[in-house]
């Protein structure tokens, strides 16, 4: 072993990094930006505004709880309304007029077994859980005051499907959307970079092929790959096949078996549109990269913000106000929302919410494709 050679290698590696300015910047800046963003989201994250409706079946004790709850909610800028009927309250949540419905049962404050019901939509599990948690504290305090100490139990229902105990059910739509985006973006970015560095793009541009044809050809090719990827991924997520015990092998299940209220076809449609946008974005970003390493290094700048600001990890409704304009321009956010509409609410093409998400994803794909087409010629020339 030669110290001289090791020093030479050390020097070469260091020089290589130092001379690669984008890598150097990302090495130091990206961790600061990412950790700063996460800290900001956690520290400054807002509890979403609560728009509550309340059905009081408990009489006088319920009136006291309702008054306390109303003051608390309206004091924080939310809205509060008392309705007569649980079905009407449920409809208000379903329509989106209210974010949560509270049903105070008969016997509240007198019967130890009284069960209070909270109803949310079920499409934004993390955001709704935050609201439920916050209301629980106020309700319990009010109920304790009204009853002299006898506390009711609380059950949480969702409009779309039963509130699942399976923790993955809350994350499955986000996981499907994000990973589809991640891999298609990475694959396209690296492939297109190779097209440039290998000289084939220069050669292509000297043929009658139009820039738009290149982007469409890429989109079709990677769209096909994304199709197969999604068939495999959606099957894996939605299906669970039990393999019976065989000899020394115990019984086990293959597939995640996440329950979906809607058809996988619509989920596929959402992800396909997302993937088409990822192809064009991959092309767009790769034109600014010189090496494959730089494409990979774009992940903290392009993909991590999508992960943080699209409802994958944190509910978008609880993100700080200052970040909300960024939330609006995150394509993954619309995919996650669309997939939740399908998985949780069982949405089909008759659903305005799903159609809106599909339309926005289509617009993102078209905008990225146009930008990629425009930038290819400039890049080659």
């Amino acid at each position: 072993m030669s110290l001289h050679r090791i020093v030479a290698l050390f020097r070469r590696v260091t020089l290589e990094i130092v001379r690669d300015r984008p890598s150097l910047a990302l090495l130091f800046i990206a961790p600061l930006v990412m950790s700063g963003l996460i800290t900001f989201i956690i520290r400054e994250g807002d509890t979403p505004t609560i728009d509550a409706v309340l059905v009081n079946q408990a009489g006088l004790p319920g009136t006291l709880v309702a008054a306390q709850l109303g003051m608390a909610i309206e004091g924080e800028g939310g809205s509060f309304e008392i309705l007569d009927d649980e079905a009407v309250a449920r409809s208000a949540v379903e329509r989106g007029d209210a974010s949560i419905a509270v049903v105070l049962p008969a016997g509240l404050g007198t019967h130890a077994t009284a069960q209070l019901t909270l109803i949310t939509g079920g499409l934004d599990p993390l955001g709704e859980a935050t609201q439920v948690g916050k209301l629980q504290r106020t309700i319990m305090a009010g109920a304790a005051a009204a009853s002299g100490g006898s506390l009711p139990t609380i059950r949480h229902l969702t409009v779309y499907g039963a509130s699942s105990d399976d923790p993955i059910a809350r994350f499955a739509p986000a996981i499907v959307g994000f990973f589809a985006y991640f891999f298609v973006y990475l694959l396209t970015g690296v492939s297109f970079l190779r097209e440039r560095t290998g000289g084939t793009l220069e050669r292509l541009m000297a043929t009658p092929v139009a820039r738009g044809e290149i982007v469409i050809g890429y989109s079709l090719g990677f769209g096909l790959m994304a199709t197969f990827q999604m068939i495999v991924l959606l099957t894996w997520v939605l299906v669970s096949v039990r393999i019976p015990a065989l000899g020394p092998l115990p019984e086990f299940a293959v597939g995640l078996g996440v329950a979906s209220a809607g058809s996988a076809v619509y989920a596929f449609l959402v992800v396909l549109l997302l993937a088409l946008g990822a192809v064009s974005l991959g092309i767009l970003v790769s034109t600014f990269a010189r090496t494959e390493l730089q494409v990979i290094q774009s992940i903290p700048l392009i993909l991590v913000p999508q992960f943080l600001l699209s409802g994958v990890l944190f509910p978008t409704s609880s993100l700080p106000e200052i970040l909300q304009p960024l939330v609006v321009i995150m394509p993954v956010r619309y995919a996650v929302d669309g997939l939740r509409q399908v998985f949780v609410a069982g949405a089909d093409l008759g659903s305005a919410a799903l159609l809106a998400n599909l339309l926005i994803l289509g617009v993102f794909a078209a905008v990225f494709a146009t930008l990629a087409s425009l930038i290819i010629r400039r890049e080659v020339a």
Partner: protein
Amino acid sequence: MNSQAPAPAIRAVDLVKAFGTVRAVDGISFELAAGRIYGLLGPNGSGKTTLIRLLTGLARATSGQAEVLGVRMPSREVLARIGYMTQSDGIYPTLRVIDNARFFAATYGVRDKGAVMEALATVQLADRAKATAMDLSGGQRRRLSLACALVHKPAVLFLDEPTVGVDPLLRVQFWQHFRALADAGTTIVVSSHVMDEADRCDELLFVRSGSVIARGSSLELRQGAGTENLEEAFLHFAGDVEVTR
């Protein structure tokens, strides 16, 4: 007697390409006739590749104009009649030889499988048609690159340093192909910094610092410089060396 001269295959009029303050192509004008082999000779960085990129429409001129087959460049209209072999191989390494040739044929609108095999046969790669491009030797990859530029039988062929990294035997074969193509009417522009290839061209353009400093046949240029050696002739026209008779 028809006194009208045939239209040039390629024309440059006061062509300029500037990158910031650097003028990579600095006011070049010429006309190149059809069916001849022209050599762009000059050291690395003299502007040969930029000139070819202007002529193929890959770069837009800062000023002046370039015409190929009577069409002002850049124009997609004429690209189907132009072949371009880049300095790098410009092939897809994970695809098979035939798939590379088929793909570039398709980009030029050629659907005839026979034309693809003919191009591969021209560069003696027909027997390796099903090999993966990355498994080819360096010389074979250059041959495949040439086949991809020939597959649509272009009227004008631009070859940017086509023989770099090519062994002497293959280099001879390449020039035989180029001559056969020129005899069949193809106009060929070859850039090179290898002076010993110059004698194979019908006419040479010495390029230095973005300008054409001399033009003529190899013999004319050597006679003009008063030397038997083309490198010395280049230096003579470049004004770097006083050549003694």
